[in-house]
Protein backbone atom coordinates (compact mmCIF):
# COMPACT_ATOMS: atom_id res chain seq x y z
CA UNK A 1 0.00 0.00 0.00
CA UNK A 2 2.90 2.28 0.78
CA UNK A 3 4.19 1.67 -2.71
CA UNK A 4 0.96 2.89 -4.28
CA UNK A 5 1.07 6.00 -2.17
CA UNK A 6 4.49 6.94 -3.51
CA UNK A 7 3.50 6.15 -7.06
CA UNK A 8 0.54 8.45 -6.70
CA UNK A 9 2.65 11.20 -5.23
CA UNK A 10 5.26 10.89 -7.95
CA UNK A 11 2.75 10.75 -10.76
CA UNK A 12 0.71 13.65 -9.51
CA UNK A 13 3.74 15.82 -8.84
CA UNK A 14 5.38 15.16 -12.19
CA UNK A 15 2.18 15.61 -14.11
CA UNK A 16 1.35 18.84 -12.29
CA UNK A 17 4.79 20.24 -13.06
CA UNK A 18 4.65 19.05 -16.66
CA UNK A 19 1.21 20.59 -17.10
CA UNK A 20 2.40 23.93 -15.77
CA UNK A 21 5.45 23.87 -18.01
CA UNK A 22 3.42 22.95 -21.06
CA UNK A 23 0.79 25.60 -20.37
CA UNK A 24 3.55 28.18 -20.05
CA UNK A 25 4.98 26.99 -23.37
CA UNK A 26 1.53 27.17 -24.92
CA UNK A 27 0.91 30.73 -23.78
CA UNK A 28 4.37 31.77 -24.94
CA UNK A 29 3.93 30.08 -28.32
CA UNK A 30 0.55 31.66 -28.98
CA UNK A 31 1.92 35.08 -28.08
CA UNK A 32 4.95 34.56 -30.24
CA UNK A 33 3.03 33.41 -33.28
CA UNK A 34 0.33 36.06 -33.13
CA UNK A 35 2.72 38.90 -32.37
CA UNK A 36 6.09 37.98 -33.78
CA UNK A 37 8.80 40.41 -32.80
CA UNK A 38 11.05 40.79 -35.78
CA UNK A 39 14.68 41.48 -35.16
CA UNK A 40 17.52 42.55 -37.33
CA UNK A 41 19.50 39.44 -37.98
CA UNK A 42 23.10 39.62 -38.86
CA UNK A 43 25.32 36.86 -40.06
CA UNK A 44 26.19 35.93 -43.58
CA UNK A 45 27.92 33.12 -45.35
CA UNK A 46 31.67 32.88 -44.90
CA UNK A 47 33.30 34.94 -47.61
CA UNK A 48 36.66 33.24 -47.73
CA UNK A 49 37.51 30.95 -50.56
CA UNK A 50 38.51 27.98 -48.51
CA UNK A 51 38.81 25.00 -50.74
CA UNK A 52 40.49 25.99 -54.00
CA UNK A 53 43.99 26.79 -52.78
CA UNK A 54 44.12 23.90 -50.40
CA UNK A 55 43.05 20.96 -52.46
CA UNK A 56 43.22 22.32 -55.97
CA UNK A 57 46.06 20.10 -57.01
CA UNK A 58 44.52 16.68 -56.90
CA UNK A 59 40.78 16.90 -56.36
CA UNK A 60 38.37 18.32 -58.89
CA UNK A 61 35.39 19.99 -57.26
CA UNK A 62 32.78 20.39 -59.91
CA UNK A 63 29.88 22.82 -59.86
CA UNK A 64 27.35 23.02 -62.67
CA UNK A 65 25.45 26.19 -63.45
CA UNK A 66 22.89 27.05 -66.05
CA UNK A 67 19.80 25.77 -67.81
CA UNK A 68 18.07 22.48 -68.43
CA UNK A 69 21.11 21.07 -70.21
CA UNK A 70 23.16 21.46 -67.06
CA UNK A 71 20.34 19.85 -65.14
CA UNK A 72 20.18 16.95 -67.56
CA UNK A 73 16.62 17.26 -68.80
CA UNK A 74 15.93 14.68 -71.47
CA UNK A 75 18.33 12.09 -70.10
CA UNK A 76 16.27 9.12 -69.02
CA UNK A 77 18.85 8.13 -66.47
CA UNK A 78 18.76 11.66 -65.04
CA UNK A 79 22.52 11.98 -65.17
CA UNK A 80 22.99 14.72 -67.75
CA UNK A 81 26.42 15.74 -68.93
CA UNK A 82 27.44 16.78 -65.43
CA UNK A 83 27.22 13.39 -63.83
CA UNK A 84 28.45 11.66 -66.95
CA UNK A 85 31.49 13.90 -67.09
CA UNK A 86 32.08 13.17 -63.42
CA UNK A 87 31.94 9.45 -64.10
CA UNK A 88 34.26 9.86 -67.05
CA UNK A 89 36.77 11.75 -64.96
CA UNK A 90 36.64 9.20 -62.17
CA UNK A 91 37.12 6.34 -64.59
CA UNK A 92 40.09 8.16 -66.04
CA UNK A 93 41.70 8.03 -62.62
CA UNK A 94 41.07 11.62 -61.55
CA UNK A 95 39.67 12.40 -58.14
CA UNK A 96 36.47 14.30 -58.76
CA UNK A 97 33.47 15.26 -56.67
CA UNK A 98 30.27 17.06 -57.51
CA UNK A 99 29.59 20.03 -55.26
CA UNK A 100 26.20 20.68 -56.74
CA UNK A 101 24.16 21.02 -59.83
CA UNK A 102 22.48 24.40 -59.94
CA UNK A 103 20.92 23.88 -63.34
CA UNK A 104 17.37 25.12 -63.59
CA UNK A 105 14.97 24.31 -66.39
CA UNK A 106 14.37 27.26 -68.67
CA UNK A 107 16.98 29.52 -67.16
CA UNK A 108 18.00 32.41 -69.39
CA UNK A 109 21.12 34.54 -69.19
CA UNK A 110 19.12 37.15 -67.30
CA UNK A 111 17.94 34.49 -64.86
CA UNK A 112 21.47 33.26 -64.31
CA UNK A 113 22.60 36.81 -63.61
CA UNK A 114 20.10 37.12 -60.76
CA UNK A 115 21.06 33.70 -59.54
CA UNK A 116 24.69 34.66 -59.33
CA UNK A 117 23.73 37.40 -56.91
CA UNK A 118 22.48 34.81 -54.42
CA UNK A 119 24.82 34.21 -51.58
CA UNK A 120 24.33 30.47 -51.59
CA UNK A 121 25.33 30.21 -55.24
CA UNK A 122 28.33 32.44 -54.67
CA UNK A 123 29.33 30.30 -51.72
CA UNK A 124 29.13 27.14 -53.81
CA UNK A 125 31.14 28.84 -56.56
CA UNK A 126 33.88 29.72 -54.13
CA UNK A 127 34.21 26.07 -53.08
CA UNK A 128 34.55 24.80 -56.63
CA UNK A 129 37.57 24.60 -58.88
CA UNK A 130 35.80 23.38 -61.99
CA UNK A 131 32.69 25.24 -63.11
CA UNK A 132 30.56 23.88 -65.92
CA UNK A 133 28.26 26.48 -67.48
CA UNK A 134 25.49 25.89 -69.96
CA UNK A 135 23.36 28.90 -70.80
CA UNK A 136 22.00 30.78 -73.74
CA UNK A 137 19.78 28.24 -75.45
CA UNK A 138 16.67 29.66 -73.88
CA UNK A 139 17.61 33.21 -74.87
CA UNK A 140 18.31 32.30 -78.42
CA UNK A 141 15.41 30.03 -79.23
CA UNK A 142 12.97 32.17 -77.37
CA UNK A 143 13.82 34.94 -79.78
CA UNK A 144 10.71 34.43 -81.82
CA UNK A 145 8.61 34.85 -78.74
CA UNK A 146 10.23 38.15 -77.94
CA UNK A 147 9.09 39.42 -81.29
CA UNK A 148 5.69 37.82 -81.03
CA UNK A 149 4.64 39.14 -77.67
CA UNK A 150 6.84 41.03 -75.33
CA UNK A 151 5.18 39.69 -72.22
CA UNK A 152 7.01 36.42 -72.27
CA UNK A 153 10.45 37.86 -71.86
CA UNK A 154 9.35 40.49 -69.41
CA UNK A 155 7.91 37.91 -67.14
CA UNK A 156 11.10 35.99 -67.46
CA UNK A 157 13.25 38.92 -66.58
CA UNK A 158 11.10 40.21 -63.79
CA UNK A 159 11.15 36.86 -62.13
CA UNK A 160 13.69 37.01 -59.40
CA UNK A 161 14.44 34.33 -56.94
CA UNK A 162 10.85 33.75 -56.03
CA UNK A 163 9.71 32.73 -59.44
CA UNK A 164 12.00 31.13 -61.89
CA UNK A 165 11.08 31.13 -65.52
CA UNK A 166 10.38 27.59 -66.35
CA UNK A 167 10.55 25.57 -69.40
CA UNK A 168 8.28 22.81 -70.29
CA UNK A 169 10.22 19.74 -71.20
CA UNK A 170 7.20 17.58 -71.80
CA UNK A 171 5.58 20.29 -73.87
CA UNK A 172 2.81 19.19 -76.12
CA UNK A 173 3.38 18.32 -79.75
CA UNK A 174 6.88 19.60 -79.85
CA UNK A 175 7.50 18.90 -83.49
CA UNK A 176 4.66 21.07 -84.63
CA UNK A 177 5.34 24.06 -82.42
CA UNK A 178 8.99 24.34 -81.66
CA UNK A 179 8.51 27.35 -79.44
CA UNK A 180 5.98 25.46 -77.37
CA UNK A 181 8.82 23.38 -76.07
CA UNK A 182 10.99 26.28 -75.17
CA UNK A 183 8.35 28.53 -73.89
CA UNK A 184 8.30 28.48 -70.14
CA UNK A 185 5.06 30.04 -69.12
CA UNK A 186 1.96 28.09 -69.80
CA UNK A 187 0.09 31.35 -70.23
CA UNK A 188 2.36 32.54 -72.98
CA UNK A 189 2.02 29.12 -74.49
CA UNK A 190 -1.70 29.62 -74.58
CA UNK A 191 -1.53 33.12 -75.96
CA UNK A 192 0.99 32.30 -78.62
CA UNK A 193 -0.44 29.11 -80.04
CA UNK A 194 -3.50 30.62 -81.70
CA UNK A 195 -1.25 32.88 -83.73
CA UNK A 196 0.98 30.49 -85.61
CA UNK A 197 2.43 33.26 -87.72
CA UNK A 198 4.47 34.49 -84.80
CA UNK A 199 5.92 31.15 -83.96
CA UNK A 200 8.09 30.87 -87.00
CA UNK A 201 11.74 30.89 -86.21
CA UNK A 202 13.23 33.26 -88.69
CA UNK A 203 16.94 34.05 -88.77
CA UNK A 204 16.11 37.62 -87.78
CA UNK A 205 14.07 36.46 -84.86
CA UNK A 206 16.82 34.19 -83.65
CA UNK A 207 19.51 36.78 -84.12
CA UNK A 208 17.55 39.61 -82.56
CA UNK A 209 18.07 38.22 -79.09
CA UNK A 210 21.72 37.56 -79.68
CA UNK A 211 23.58 40.82 -79.00
CA UNK A 212 21.99 41.46 -75.63
CA UNK A 213 22.16 37.85 -74.53
CA UNK A 214 25.79 37.65 -75.58
CA UNK A 215 26.49 40.77 -73.56
CA UNK A 216 24.88 39.15 -70.54
CA UNK A 217 26.89 36.00 -71.10
CA UNK A 218 30.03 38.12 -70.96
CA UNK A 219 28.88 39.64 -67.70
CA UNK A 220 28.05 36.23 -66.29
CA UNK A 221 31.48 34.82 -67.05
CA UNK A 222 33.02 37.99 -65.66
CA UNK A 223 31.06 37.57 -62.44
CA UNK A 224 32.09 33.95 -62.11
CA UNK A 225 35.72 34.89 -62.58
CA UNK A 226 35.34 37.61 -59.94
CA UNK A 227 33.74 35.30 -57.41
CA UNK A 228 36.30 32.58 -57.89
CA UNK A 229 39.38 33.61 -59.90
CA UNK A 230 41.06 30.24 -59.43
CA UNK A 231 38.34 28.07 -60.90
CA UNK A 232 38.51 26.66 -64.39
CA UNK A 233 35.33 27.53 -66.27
CA UNK A 234 34.01 25.34 -69.07
CA UNK A 235 31.25 26.82 -71.16
CA UNK A 236 29.20 24.32 -73.14
CA UNK A 237 28.49 25.70 -76.59
CA UNK A 238 25.11 25.51 -78.26
CA UNK A 239 23.90 23.11 -80.92
CA UNK A 240 21.02 23.58 -83.30
CA UNK A 241 18.10 21.44 -82.13
CA UNK A 242 15.96 22.36 -85.14
CA UNK A 243 18.29 21.07 -87.80
CA UNK A 244 15.83 18.39 -88.87
CA UNK A 245 13.09 20.88 -89.65
CA UNK A 246 13.91 21.95 -93.15
CA UNK A 247 12.96 25.59 -92.82
CA UNK A 248 14.92 25.96 -89.66
CA UNK A 249 18.13 24.20 -90.58
CA UNK A 250 19.97 27.09 -92.16
CA UNK A 251 18.71 29.97 -89.96
CA UNK A 252 19.18 27.83 -86.88
CA UNK A 253 22.70 26.93 -87.81
CA UNK A 254 23.51 30.55 -88.56
CA UNK A 255 22.14 31.77 -85.28
CA UNK A 256 23.86 29.08 -83.24
CA UNK A 257 27.14 29.68 -84.98
CA UNK A 258 26.84 33.40 -84.40
CA UNK A 259 26.20 32.71 -80.74
CA UNK A 260 29.07 30.29 -80.40
CA UNK A 261 31.38 32.78 -82.09
CA UNK A 262 30.27 35.51 -79.75
CA UNK A 263 30.85 33.18 -76.81
CA UNK A 264 34.26 32.25 -78.14
CA UNK A 265 35.18 35.91 -78.39
CA UNK A 266 34.29 36.47 -74.76
CA UNK A 267 35.94 33.31 -73.51
CA UNK A 268 39.19 34.03 -75.31
CA UNK A 269 39.66 37.10 -73.16
CA UNK A 270 39.86 34.95 -70.02
CA UNK A 271 42.83 32.73 -69.47
CA UNK A 272 41.07 30.06 -67.41
CA UNK A 273 37.98 29.58 -69.52
CA UNK A 274 37.30 27.03 -72.21
CA UNK A 275 34.51 26.66 -74.70
CA UNK A 276 33.37 23.09 -75.20
CA UNK A 277 31.85 22.86 -78.67
CA UNK A 278 28.79 20.68 -79.22
CA UNK A 279 27.54 22.00 -82.53
CA UNK A 280 29.33 19.37 -84.59
CA UNK A 281 28.23 16.56 -82.29
CA UNK A 282 24.59 17.10 -83.02
CA UNK A 283 24.62 18.43 -86.55
CA UNK A 284 23.00 15.81 -88.83
CA UNK A 285 22.65 13.36 -85.94
CA UNK A 286 19.65 14.89 -84.26
CA UNK A 287 17.52 11.78 -84.54
CA UNK A 288 20.15 9.83 -82.67
CA UNK A 289 21.02 12.27 -79.94
CA UNK A 290 17.91 14.30 -79.21
CA UNK A 291 15.35 13.14 -76.70
CA UNK A 292 11.67 12.85 -77.46
CA UNK A 293 10.99 16.50 -76.67
CA UNK A 294 13.03 17.39 -79.73
CA UNK A 295 15.06 20.01 -77.94
CA UNK A 296 17.12 18.43 -75.18
CA UNK A 297 19.76 15.77 -75.79
CA UNK A 298 19.00 12.20 -74.80
CA UNK A 299 21.33 10.03 -72.77
CA UNK A 300 23.65 9.33 -75.70
CA UNK A 301 23.74 13.01 -76.58
CA UNK A 302 24.71 13.92 -73.07
CA UNK A 303 27.32 11.18 -73.12
CA UNK A 304 28.96 12.77 -76.14
CA UNK A 305 28.92 16.22 -74.56
CA UNK A 306 30.43 14.80 -71.38
CA UNK A 307 33.23 13.11 -73.32
CA UNK A 308 34.14 16.49 -74.76
CA UNK A 309 34.14 18.01 -71.30
CA UNK A 310 36.35 15.25 -69.92
CA UNK A 311 38.80 15.85 -72.75
CA UNK A 312 38.79 19.57 -72.02
CA UNK A 313 39.34 19.15 -68.28
CA UNK A 314 42.12 16.58 -68.47
Amino acid at each position, binding site marked *: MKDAKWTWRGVSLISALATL*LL*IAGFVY*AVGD*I*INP*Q*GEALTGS*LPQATTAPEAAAADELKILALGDSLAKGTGDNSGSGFVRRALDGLTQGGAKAG*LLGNMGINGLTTAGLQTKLQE*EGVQYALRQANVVLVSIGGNDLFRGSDILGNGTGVQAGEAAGTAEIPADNPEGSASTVQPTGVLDGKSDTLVTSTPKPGEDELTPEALLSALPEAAKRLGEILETIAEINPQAQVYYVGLYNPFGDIEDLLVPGNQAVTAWNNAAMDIINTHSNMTLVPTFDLFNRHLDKYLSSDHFHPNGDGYQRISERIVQAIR
Partner: protein
Amino acid sequence: MTNLLPLIRNECTKIIKKKRFYVILLILLVLVPMFTYAQMRVAERSRDKFNSDWRLEIQQRITDNQNSLSSDRIPEEWKSYRRIFIQQLQYYLDHDVNPNEPSGVTFTREFLDNSVSLFIPLLIMAVASDLVSGERTTGTIKMLLTRPVKRWKVLFSKLAALLMFVSLIVLSVFVISYLISGLAFGYKGFNIPVFTGFQLSGDTVDMSGVHSVPQWKYLLMQGGLIWFVSVVVALLAFMVSVLVRSTAASIVVMMAALIAGSILTNMAAAWSTAKYLFMVNLGLTGYLAGTPAPIEGMTLPFSLAVLSVWGLAAIIISFAVFTKRDILN
Protein backbone atom coordinates in the same frame (compact mmCIF):
# COMPACT_ATOMS: atom_id res chain seq x y z
CA MET B 1 -19.48 16.62 0.04
CA THR B 2 -16.98 13.99 -0.85
CA ASN B 3 -13.58 15.26 -1.67
CA LEU B 4 -12.59 14.89 -5.29
CA LEU B 5 -8.94 14.16 -4.65
CA PRO B 6 -9.31 10.54 -3.49
CA LEU B 7 -11.48 9.89 -6.52
CA ILE B 8 -8.86 11.27 -8.87
CA ARG B 9 -6.22 9.25 -7.09
CA ASN B 10 -8.33 6.17 -7.51
CA GLU B 11 -8.69 6.78 -11.24
CA CYS B 12 -4.98 7.38 -11.60
CA THR B 13 -4.19 4.14 -9.87
CA LYS B 14 -6.57 2.37 -12.22
CA ILE B 15 -4.81 3.79 -15.27
CA ILE B 16 -1.43 2.76 -13.91
CA LYS B 17 -2.64 -0.69 -12.93
CA LYS B 18 -4.05 -1.28 -16.39
CA LYS B 19 -0.52 -0.78 -17.73
CA ARG B 20 -1.72 1.28 -20.66
CA PHE B 21 0.88 3.90 -19.87
CA TYR B 22 3.65 1.32 -19.95
CA VAL B 23 2.45 0.20 -23.34
CA ILE B 24 2.79 3.78 -24.55
CA LEU B 25 6.32 4.01 -23.20
CA LEU B 26 7.14 0.70 -24.83
CA ILE B 27 5.82 1.89 -28.20
CA LEU B 28 8.02 4.96 -27.92
CA LEU B 29 11.03 2.91 -26.93
CA VAL B 30 10.60 0.74 -29.99
CA LEU B 31 9.67 3.37 -32.55
CA VAL B 32 12.02 6.23 -31.68
CA PRO B 33 15.18 4.16 -32.28
CA MET B 34 13.78 3.23 -35.67
CA PHE B 35 13.23 6.87 -36.62
CA THR B 36 16.63 7.77 -35.23
CA TYR B 37 18.28 5.13 -37.33
CA ALA B 38 16.48 6.29 -40.47
CA GLN B 39 17.46 9.87 -39.77
CA MET B 40 21.05 8.80 -39.23
CA ARG B 41 21.15 7.15 -42.62
CA VAL B 42 19.83 10.31 -44.24
CA ALA B 43 22.49 12.37 -42.49
CA GLU B 44 25.20 9.92 -43.53
CA ARG B 45 24.15 10.00 -47.14
CA SER B 46 24.12 13.75 -47.37
CA ARG B 47 27.50 13.86 -45.68
CA ASP B 48 28.90 11.66 -48.44
CA LYS B 49 27.30 13.64 -51.19
CA PHE B 50 28.08 17.15 -50.07
CA ASN B 51 31.43 16.80 -48.34
CA SER B 52 29.59 17.54 -45.08
CA ASP B 53 28.99 21.09 -46.26
CA TRP B 54 25.42 21.87 -45.32
CA ARG B 55 25.45 25.14 -47.26
CA LEU B 56 25.96 23.30 -50.53
CA GLU B 57 23.24 20.89 -49.58
CA ILE B 58 20.75 23.66 -48.83
CA GLN B 59 21.62 25.42 -52.07
CA GLN B 60 21.02 22.16 -53.93
CA ARG B 61 17.70 21.71 -52.20
CA ILE B 62 16.69 25.21 -53.22
CA THR B 63 17.67 24.49 -56.82
CA ASP B 64 15.82 21.18 -56.87
CA ASN B 65 12.68 22.78 -55.55
CA GLN B 66 12.93 25.58 -58.06
CA ASN B 67 13.16 23.00 -60.79
CA SER B 68 10.08 21.18 -59.63
CA LEU B 69 8.14 24.43 -59.86
CA SER B 70 8.32 24.27 -63.61
CA SER B 71 6.52 20.99 -64.01
CA ASP B 72 2.94 21.41 -65.14
CA ARG B 73 1.87 18.21 -63.49
CA ILE B 74 2.46 19.48 -59.99
CA PRO B 75 -0.69 20.93 -58.42
CA GLU B 76 -0.70 24.64 -57.75
CA GLU B 77 -0.94 24.19 -53.95
CA TRP B 78 2.22 22.09 -53.87
CA LYS B 79 3.97 24.72 -55.92
CA SER B 80 3.07 27.48 -53.53
CA TYR B 81 4.14 25.22 -50.68
CA ARG B 82 7.49 24.81 -52.38
CA ARG B 83 7.84 28.50 -53.13
CA ILE B 84 7.40 29.18 -49.43
CA PHE B 85 9.83 26.42 -48.56
CA ILE B 86 12.42 27.88 -50.96
CA GLN B 87 12.13 31.32 -49.41
CA GLN B 88 12.59 29.91 -45.93
CA LEU B 89 15.61 27.84 -46.92
CA GLN B 90 17.02 30.89 -48.63
CA TYR B 91 16.54 32.84 -45.42
CA TYR B 92 18.41 30.25 -43.39
CA LEU B 93 21.17 30.17 -45.97
CA ASP B 94 21.47 33.94 -46.17
CA HIS B 95 21.91 34.10 -42.42
CA ASP B 96 24.31 31.20 -42.31
CA VAL B 97 22.21 29.07 -40.00
CA ASN B 98 21.91 25.36 -40.62
CA PRO B 99 18.22 24.43 -40.34
CA ASN B 100 19.07 20.76 -39.82
CA GLU B 101 22.12 20.94 -37.58
CA PRO B 102 22.36 17.31 -36.50
CA SER B 103 21.76 16.96 -32.78
CA GLY B 104 19.44 15.13 -30.44
CA VAL B 105 17.50 18.32 -29.86
CA THR B 106 17.00 18.96 -33.57
CA PHE B 107 15.81 15.40 -34.02
CA THR B 108 13.32 15.83 -31.20
CA ARG B 109 12.04 19.03 -32.76
CA GLU B 110 11.52 17.42 -36.15
CA PHE B 111 10.07 14.27 -34.68
CA LEU B 112 7.50 16.30 -32.76
CA ASP B 113 6.62 18.31 -35.85
CA ASN B 114 5.88 15.10 -37.68
CA SER B 115 4.03 13.33 -34.90
CA VAL B 116 1.70 16.06 -33.71
CA SER B 117 -1.20 15.26 -35.98
CA LEU B 118 -1.28 11.48 -35.84
CA PHE B 119 1.25 9.72 -33.64
CA ILE B 120 0.78 11.62 -30.40
CA PRO B 121 -3.03 11.67 -30.68
CA LEU B 122 -2.83 7.91 -31.14
CA LEU B 123 -0.90 7.53 -27.90
CA ILE B 124 -3.41 9.75 -26.12
CA MET B 125 -6.24 7.59 -27.41
CA ALA B 126 -4.64 4.51 -25.96
CA VAL B 127 -5.45 5.90 -22.52
CA ALA B 128 -8.53 7.97 -23.20
CA SER B 129 -10.65 5.58 -25.24
CA ASP B 130 -10.75 3.07 -22.46
CA LEU B 131 -11.73 5.20 -19.51
CA VAL B 132 -15.50 4.85 -19.45
CA SER B 133 -16.22 2.21 -22.03
CA GLY B 134 -13.69 -0.06 -20.37
CA GLU B 135 -15.71 0.03 -17.18
CA ARG B 136 -18.80 -0.90 -19.11
CA THR B 137 -17.11 -3.75 -20.95
CA THR B 138 -15.97 -5.28 -17.70
CA GLY B 139 -19.16 -4.34 -15.87
CA THR B 140 -17.38 -2.49 -13.08
CA ILE B 141 -19.33 0.66 -13.86
CA LYS B 142 -22.19 -0.55 -11.70
CA MET B 143 -19.91 -0.90 -8.72
CA LEU B 144 -18.65 2.58 -9.32
CA LEU B 145 -22.05 4.20 -9.60
CA THR B 146 -23.62 2.46 -6.62
CA ARG B 147 -21.27 4.36 -4.31
CA PRO B 148 -22.66 7.45 -2.67
CA VAL B 149 -20.83 9.74 -5.07
CA LYS B 150 -22.45 11.99 -7.58
CA ARG B 151 -22.09 10.86 -11.16
CA TRP B 152 -20.52 14.08 -12.36
CA LYS B 153 -17.85 13.67 -9.73
CA VAL B 154 -17.03 10.22 -10.97
CA LEU B 155 -16.74 11.50 -14.51
CA PHE B 156 -14.80 14.56 -13.44
CA SER B 157 -12.27 12.48 -11.57
CA LYS B 158 -11.77 10.35 -14.67
CA LEU B 159 -11.29 13.45 -16.76
CA ALA B 160 -8.80 14.95 -14.33
CA ALA B 161 -6.78 11.75 -14.27
CA LEU B 162 -6.83 11.69 -18.04
CA LEU B 163 -5.51 15.23 -18.27
CA MET B 164 -2.71 14.33 -15.88
CA PHE B 165 -1.70 11.51 -18.14
CA VAL B 166 -1.91 13.69 -21.22
CA SER B 167 0.82 15.87 -19.74
CA LEU B 168 2.83 12.81 -18.81
CA ILE B 169 2.56 11.36 -22.31
CA VAL B 170 3.65 14.60 -23.99
CA LEU B 171 6.52 14.86 -21.55
CA SER B 172 7.63 11.30 -22.11
CA VAL B 173 7.56 11.70 -25.89
CA PHE B 174 9.98 14.59 -25.42
CA VAL B 175 12.23 12.87 -22.97
CA ILE B 176 12.41 9.53 -24.75
CA SER B 177 13.05 10.97 -28.20
CA TYR B 178 15.73 13.27 -26.81
CA LEU B 179 17.47 10.55 -24.81
CA ILE B 180 17.45 7.99 -27.60
CA SER B 181 18.34 10.29 -30.50
CA GLY B 182 21.04 11.83 -28.35
CA LEU B 183 22.86 8.50 -28.44
CA ALA B 184 23.21 8.90 -32.19
CA PHE B 185 23.43 12.66 -32.66
CA GLY B 186 24.80 13.94 -29.37
CA TYR B 187 22.99 15.62 -26.51
CA LYS B 188 24.03 19.17 -27.30
CA GLY B 189 22.12 21.63 -29.37
CA PHE B 190 19.81 23.44 -26.99
CA ASN B 191 21.15 26.80 -28.06
CA ILE B 192 21.11 26.35 -31.82
CA PRO B 193 19.08 29.22 -33.26
CA VAL B 194 15.83 28.38 -35.02
CA PHE B 195 13.91 30.92 -37.05
CA THR B 196 10.26 31.44 -36.35
CA GLY B 197 7.74 34.11 -37.18
CA PHE B 198 7.40 33.52 -40.92
CA GLN B 199 4.12 35.13 -41.90
CA LEU B 200 2.59 33.60 -44.96
CA SER B 201 0.33 35.43 -47.33
CA GLY B 202 -0.41 33.46 -50.44
CA ASP B 203 2.82 32.52 -52.13
CA THR B 204 5.08 34.94 -50.38
CA VAL B 205 6.62 34.91 -46.97
CA ASP B 206 6.71 38.07 -44.92
CA MET B 207 10.10 38.08 -43.27
CA SER B 208 9.57 41.19 -41.16
CA GLY B 209 8.46 39.19 -38.13
CA VAL B 210 11.15 36.56 -38.36
CA HIS B 211 13.34 36.20 -35.30
CA SER B 212 15.67 33.56 -34.04
CA VAL B 213 14.86 31.54 -30.95
CA PRO B 214 17.19 29.19 -29.13
CA GLN B 215 16.13 25.65 -29.74
CA TRP B 216 15.13 24.93 -26.14
CA LYS B 217 12.64 27.77 -26.25
CA TYR B 218 11.32 26.48 -29.54
CA LEU B 219 10.85 23.04 -28.00
CA LEU B 220 8.98 24.60 -25.12
CA MET B 221 6.62 26.38 -27.49
CA GLN B 222 6.17 23.21 -29.50
CA GLY B 223 5.41 21.32 -26.30
CA GLY B 224 2.75 23.84 -25.37
CA LEU B 225 1.02 23.58 -28.72
CA ILE B 226 1.23 19.80 -28.70
CA TRP B 227 -0.20 19.74 -25.23
CA PHE B 228 -3.20 21.77 -26.37
CA VAL B 229 -3.80 19.44 -29.31
CA SER B 230 -3.46 16.43 -27.04
CA VAL B 231 -5.96 17.81 -24.54
CA VAL B 232 -8.54 18.33 -27.25
CA VAL B 233 -7.97 14.86 -28.66
CA ALA B 234 -8.21 13.45 -25.14
CA LEU B 235 -11.52 15.22 -24.55
CA LEU B 236 -12.95 13.91 -27.79
CA ALA B 237 -11.76 10.38 -27.18
CA PHE B 238 -13.23 10.65 -23.70
CA MET B 239 -16.58 11.68 -25.11
CA VAL B 240 -16.57 8.80 -27.56
CA SER B 241 -15.75 6.40 -24.77
CA VAL B 242 -18.77 7.73 -22.82
CA LEU B 243 -21.06 7.37 -25.82
CA VAL B 244 -19.96 3.99 -27.08
CA ARG B 245 -20.37 0.80 -25.17
CA SER B 246 -17.22 -1.08 -26.08
CA THR B 247 -13.61 0.01 -25.98
CA ALA B 248 -12.90 -1.45 -29.39
CA ALA B 249 -15.64 0.62 -30.99
CA SER B 250 -14.44 3.75 -29.27
CA ILE B 251 -10.89 3.25 -30.50
CA VAL B 252 -12.09 2.60 -34.02
CA VAL B 253 -14.20 5.74 -34.08
CA MET B 254 -11.33 7.94 -32.98
CA MET B 255 -8.83 6.23 -35.24
CA ALA B 256 -11.10 6.72 -38.23
CA ALA B 257 -11.47 10.41 -37.40
CA LEU B 258 -7.73 10.92 -37.04
CA ILE B 259 -6.83 9.07 -40.20
CA ALA B 260 -9.53 10.91 -42.11
CA GLY B 261 -7.90 14.07 -40.83
CA SER B 262 -4.49 13.16 -42.13
CA ILE B 263 -5.95 12.25 -45.51
CA LEU B 264 -8.00 15.42 -45.67
CA THR B 265 -5.04 17.64 -44.88
CA ASN B 266 -3.33 16.18 -47.91
CA MET B 267 -6.10 16.80 -50.35
CA ALA B 268 -8.77 19.04 -48.94
CA ALA B 269 -7.49 22.34 -50.24
CA ALA B 270 -10.42 22.49 -52.60
CA TRP B 271 -13.03 21.77 -49.94
CA SER B 272 -12.62 24.74 -47.68
CA THR B 273 -15.41 23.90 -45.21
CA ALA B 274 -13.23 21.03 -44.04
CA LYS B 275 -11.27 23.55 -42.01
CA TYR B 276 -13.99 23.45 -39.35
CA LEU B 277 -13.23 19.80 -38.64
CA PHE B 278 -11.04 19.26 -35.61
CA MET B 279 -8.78 16.69 -37.21
CA VAL B 280 -7.63 19.09 -39.93
CA ASN B 281 -6.54 21.58 -37.29
CA LEU B 282 -4.24 19.33 -35.30
CA GLY B 283 -1.00 20.52 -36.91
CA LEU B 284 -0.54 23.54 -34.68
CA THR B 285 3.25 23.32 -34.71
CA GLY B 286 3.14 24.13 -38.42
CA TYR B 287 2.27 27.70 -37.52
CA LEU B 288 5.43 27.86 -35.47
CA ALA B 289 7.64 26.44 -38.20
CA GLY B 290 5.98 28.55 -40.88
CA THR B 291 4.68 25.70 -43.01
CA PRO B 292 1.56 26.62 -44.93
CA ALA B 293 -1.75 25.53 -43.44
CA PRO B 294 -3.52 22.73 -45.29
CA ILE B 295 -6.51 24.88 -46.18
CA GLU B 296 -6.45 28.53 -47.02
CA GLY B 297 -7.77 30.83 -44.33
CA MET B 298 -6.51 28.76 -41.43
CA THR B 299 -4.49 30.68 -38.87
CA LEU B 300 -3.40 29.88 -35.35
CA PRO B 301 -6.31 31.75 -33.67
CA PHE B 302 -8.71 30.06 -36.05
CA SER B 303 -7.36 26.59 -35.31
CA LEU B 304 -7.32 27.27 -31.59
CA ALA B 305 -10.92 28.44 -31.75
CA VAL B 306 -12.03 25.39 -33.73
CA LEU B 307 -10.25 23.01 -31.38
CA SER B 308 -11.63 24.78 -28.30
CA VAL B 309 -15.19 24.59 -29.58
CA TRP B 310 -14.83 20.88 -30.30
CA GLY B 311 -13.23 20.28 -26.91
CA LEU B 312 -15.91 22.20 -25.01
CA ALA B 313 -18.67 20.46 -26.91
CA ALA B 314 -17.07 17.14 -26.04
CA ILE B 315 -17.03 18.00 -22.32
CA ILE B 316 -20.64 19.14 -22.34
CA ILE B 317 -21.86 16.08 -24.21
CA SER B 318 -19.87 13.70 -22.02
CA PHE B 319 -21.27 15.10 -18.81
CA ALA B 320 -24.81 15.48 -20.10
CA VAL B 321 -24.93 11.92 -21.35
CA PHE B 322 -23.14 10.32 -18.45
CA THR B 323 -25.27 11.94 -15.75
CA LYS B 324 -28.57 11.23 -17.49
CA ARG B 325 -28.16 7.85 -19.02
CA ASP B 326 -29.52 4.62 -17.54
CA ILE B 327 -26.95 1.96 -16.94
CA LEU B 328 -28.72 -1.23 -17.87
CA ASN B 329 -26.53 -4.24 -18.10
